[in-house]
């Protein structure tokens, strides 16, 4: 007869057992963020991530020099949305000093109205 004794795996629960789940959580969130950004992009519109601390004007100059225009700035410093018809815009902005240039997502989260175009 079985009693209230712990079953296999029950008593060894600890951080070591939680680690795989935590790693998966971190990687999953990163992957979801990436997938969120990369899916459903807006053609000719880019998300620009500059070095943290870069001033807004410097980002504006950077975009203009790459023959594009600023659509808006993100909530965090160093993040901007730009638009350009130049197929080499992404390369040009990186050349001007941007860290990461990605196609701009159409929308983020699930609270906004569908099919929003900025």
């Amino acid at each position, binding site marked *: 007869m079985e009693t209230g004794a712990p079953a*296999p795996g*029950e008593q060894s629960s600890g951080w070591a057992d939680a680690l795989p*789940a935590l790693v998966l959580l971190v990687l999953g969130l990163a992957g979801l963020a990436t997938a969120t950004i990369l899916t459903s992009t807006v053609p000719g519109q880019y998300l620009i991530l500059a070095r943290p601390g870069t001033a807004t004007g410097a980002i504006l100059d950077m975009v203009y020099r790459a023959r594009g225009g600023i659509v808006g700035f993100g909530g*965090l410093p160093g993040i901007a949305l730009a638009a350009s018809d130049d197929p080499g815009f992404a390369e040009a902005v990186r050349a001007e000093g941007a860290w990461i240039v990605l196609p701009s997502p159409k929308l*983020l989260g699930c609270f906004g109205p569908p099919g929003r175009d900025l």
Partner: protein
Amino acid sequence: MNAEIHRLRERFGALLVWLLWAHVPVLGAAAAWNKVMSVPAAMLIGAGLALIYHIAWLRCGTGAVTRNLSGIVLIGEPAFLLILFAGHPWQMDMHMYFFAVIALNIAWFDRAVIVFSGTGTALHHLLLLYFLPYAVFPSDGDLARVVLHAVIVIFQMLVLLWVIDMVRKAFERISVMSDELIAKSVALEDRNRLVEESSRAKSMFLANISHEIRTPINAVLGFCHLLQRSRLEPRQRDHVAKLNDAGVSLLRLINDVLDFSKNEAGKLTLESHDFDLRAAIGSQIQLVEESARARGLSLAARIDDRIPALVTGDELRLNQVVLNLLSNAIKFTEKGGITISVRQIRSDADRVCIECAVSDTGIGMTAAQQAHIFASFMQADSSTTRRFGGTGLGLAICRQIVEQMDGRIEVQSTPGLGSVFTFTMRLGIGADASCQAPLPHDRLRALRVLVADDNPASRDFIDATLTRWNMRGDLVPSGSEALAMLEREAMAGNPYDLVLLDWKMPGMDGLQTVRAMQSSPHLAVMPTTLIVTAYPIDEFIRDQDRAAISAVLRKPLDAHGLLDMLNQLIPPAAPPVSSGADLRASSAGLHLPQAMQGLCVLLVEDNAINREIAVELLNDAGLVVDCAENGVIACRRILDEDHGYAAVLMDVQMPEMDGVAATKLIRQTHSADCLPIIALTAHAYEEERQRCLGAGMNDHISKPVDPDQLIRVLGTWLKTGPQAVRKERTRAGATGLVPVLPAQLPPFGLDRALRRVNGKAALLRRLIVSFGESYGRVGDDLRAMIRAGRIEDAARLAHTLKSVAGSLELAEVPDLAGQIEAALGAGESGAVAGLIAELADRMAPAIAAANSLQPAPSQASADAPAAARINAASHASAEARAARDALRQQLCRRSLSARAGFHAFADALGLDAGTRDAHPVLQALLRLDYAEALRLLDGTQPETGPDNGEVAT
């Protein structure tokens, strides 16, 4: 952890494997539908999630790693669906799925998993629904809604944690209760086992005690039966009768206790067969009518005409109930009468419900006494037990039986006025009586019958039976009326052909009526006359009676038995028997039909006393008996030696090999049809009977053996085919069944003496030889006793001589001995000298005749080599040596069973009847001279050397 929770986790863990893999096509479909991502990529991601969990499940089972991972993997599914439904109106609805998968994790009953999945969901929302939109589109970071979602998720998480705690506590409580229940169950099982063992031990005790008690009762009743058939002084007969009554009472008591305990144990099994209810009731009435008559009570029966001729049920148990109620009614009734009435209260196509009421005018009972009258070991009150005796089990057994038959039993009683015991019973309706019950042939139906019985119930029974047989019968209540009817009808030229006379009737009894019929000048031709009695009647029947009585029928009279007897007496194509020629063959039903006379049966019985009784009964019935002391010997006789037995009577409990094992062995080569085996067992249990029948036995007789039943059962099973008869005739010649007495042996009246010993010539020969040895010097002995002043001894010797000489039909000697006894009793010692001298003269030819039956010296001498051969044979035969050793021990113990032991020894030696009867050891045993028998037996021991083969015999 609770084992039940562990089992639930295992089932849920396995379910999750299938559930996660099932998401893969769903994700692919979502991707194909909303076109946010390529289908393969979506399916690949879904497969990745399923694979992560699957690997964890395979490696860690239900361990914490697997559980924690499952919490994250599960919320990964709705999170990924949010992406796949990006821009679609359903995207928002995918949040519902978060709640579903978080709730699904409750099946792990693990707080950590719920915390993981809830925290993961909250982080997912903060990152992807607030931080990331805010980072890109500052206006989209709706922190309030994210917080709202997070609060709902946390609330759900708290609810789930509470539920998990509650469920786990409930499981813990259930586990504790389960542990306690299991512990109690184990204790209960132990107790049950002890109770069952105790019950089994009780059953074994009952079975064993039954065997142990029944065996000596068998001896007591058996010898009583034999004694009652011998010549006894009135005082001795009275003592024997009382001894027999006590034995019967003891047996009834044991049967009651056994019945009750068997019923209590739920082992009362009812049989079902067709029977005649009227005959069954009539039989029970006949069983008690003598008791009723002795107490001056009337006995009447009323049976509903609507009751079918044949009903189906357990006749034996029904009889038990009826007999018990009738016996009680008689016991508790001082004056008045008892009435038994049976009526049909309802019936359908195949069942009939009967109500039987036994009413009396006895002492009655109060309401309080009635309340517990059917309880075990209860009588009306303790004074009842003191006054009337009994165990108080009878009515309890009746209740058990009646309830088993879907009926009920109740009593209505008024103190001082009487009681009415009523029981109902459901019985089947038997097959058509005309198809089942045999009817008399035409010659019987044409007979005019007169029945004389003072008991109205018996008259009614016989009247009903005759009516069913389409026979004419006139009934009268007394012998004198019967005689008057016989004379009147004879004078009118319309005489009766058949007369049934009850023996015990007030006024002129049955025998007196027969004598009056014989001396009646108006009865030129005596009708076929049957005496009906419940008592041993042999000793009261005179020689002249035998000429007029065709048969004696035992009560209770049953229709089948009566018809069988009538068929024997008046066969279809033979003239009526009107002489007493067949009296002995039919007397008391203890003789088998002529066709079975002389058949050989094997009696397998280890108890010497029981063996002796059975041999006597079987011999009396006209059978030749071989004996075996155990199953091994029986099997050897049947399987190896093939004596062509007509039947085997098999004791069940025996040393070396019991009856069941022996029967199974015999049945491998001898079918039940060709060799009937009848069990003799002291066990009264149905299981024992079934065990015997299951082993292949044909029938079962319980001990103490009832002689009637023994002969009846043998009559049913004995084989009477020509092969059996031929074997018997051959055997009779081989075993020395030759006349052991001359045709005449004056002055002994051999014919009459033979009749006294039921025709057993060998026994009569032994008696005569013994007489010669015992009384050869009776004159000298008497004179010596008188000279020594031992007058009482002399009178006793004369008395014994009178009795023995009378039984041997010696003319004059009994009278002379009686005169000597009377003279000695009167103190006239001097006058007896002349009588003794005359006695010696009269005894001389008798002694000479008796001595003529002794083996002549030359013959004894001639027998010496034969004895030596016997010794040689016995020397070589282990069986003979064993038999001789057993006999020697019996002689040393001065055991009565030594006679049986000698016969076993003689069997082993193969002695024929003549040699056996003349054997000095047997002669010494018959004189109860054990020392002489032992000396003679030891004298037959073979010496060690071949030259010392002489024997002392």
